[in-house]
């Protein structure tokens, strides 16, 4: 899994793209189109209501069909009660759908997550999407179960800039382990 650092002068459009971390495993054609990993979530209501029990996952990490399903079953949300009043539920559902991964295909991770899921599947978790599984299948279990992390859903414990929508390898720092280097 070698990572290549590409310097792509983006002459045609007049934009200078400084450096792009390209994955060796997926389409190189679309590299230049990426405008970031995932769109940052800034909505105050979303962060308050969906960021109280865990990291406020960016809407661009799951397709709309997953969000709609989740928002219809908040009273039994992974065995927890995350129910909200009707007005707030509707507001957040709209926000999630509008910014879902399949509506944010200009963002690199959103595009890769979307493309990894087959059309007849509706994953309940980000951590159950094929792209996510593929990226995390080499992490030793003992690193995940330690108190500072607990579950793979605790993105920000390892991805120190996750709240800014940045998931690149350079911004990974695993507690009691340090920087990740898989080369």
């Amino acid at each position, binding site marked *: 899994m070698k990572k290549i650092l590409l310097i792509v002068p983006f002459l045609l459009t007049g934009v200078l793209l400084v450096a792009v971390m390209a994955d060796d495993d997926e389409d190189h054609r679309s590299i230049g189109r990426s405008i970031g990993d995932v769109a940052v979530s800034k909505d105050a209501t979303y962060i308050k209501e969906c960021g109280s029990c*865990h990291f406020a996952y960016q809407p661009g990490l799951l397709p709309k069909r997953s969000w709609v399903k989740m928002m219809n079953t908040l009273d039994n949300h992974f065995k927890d009660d995350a*129910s909200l009043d009707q007005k707030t539920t509707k507001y957040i559902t709209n926000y999630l759908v509008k910014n879902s991964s399949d509506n944010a295909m200009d963002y690199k991770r959103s595009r890769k997550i979307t493309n990894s899921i087959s059309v007849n599947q509706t994953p309940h978790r980000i951590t159950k999407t094929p792209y996510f599984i593929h990226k995390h299948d080499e992490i030793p279990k003992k690193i995940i179960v330690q108190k500072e992390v607990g*579950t793979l*859903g605790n993105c920000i414990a390892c991805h120190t800039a996750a709240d800014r929508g940045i998931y690149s390898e350079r911004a990974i720092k695993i507690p009691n382990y340090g920087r990740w280097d898989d080369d």
Partner: protein
Amino acid sequence: MKKQLALLIVSGVLANAGGFNPSMQGYIDSLKVEAKKSNNSFADFNAKRGELIFTSKHIGKRGREISCASCHGANLSLSSQNAFTNKSIEPLSPRTNPKRLTNVQDVQKWLKRNFNDVYKREGTPQEKGDVLYYIKSK
């Protein structure tokens, strides 16, 4: 007349020192009315009873032993960690964390969710009042 009014206001403020804000006090008062309905001998909420509600362990919604303190910690003036998600939780004590117990809607929402997590049912009005007195005393 003016003097009397001033005195009234002063004593009101004093009685409320360390107490709840007006909207929270309104919520507490409505809980008292409810508690009285189901228990004739009910006089007032009690922080000692609240402590037991908060610290005792029960087989919760997930089939495992859990208490309120499993997520909020034993010392309410310290940060703690969510037992389900490992996310850190700011102190519950209103003395260390003045935002606590100030927004009625938030308090109602979390009491409903959290009693379900621990007791697999909603709290009774008396239980809610007792536990709020306990948190307030910390």
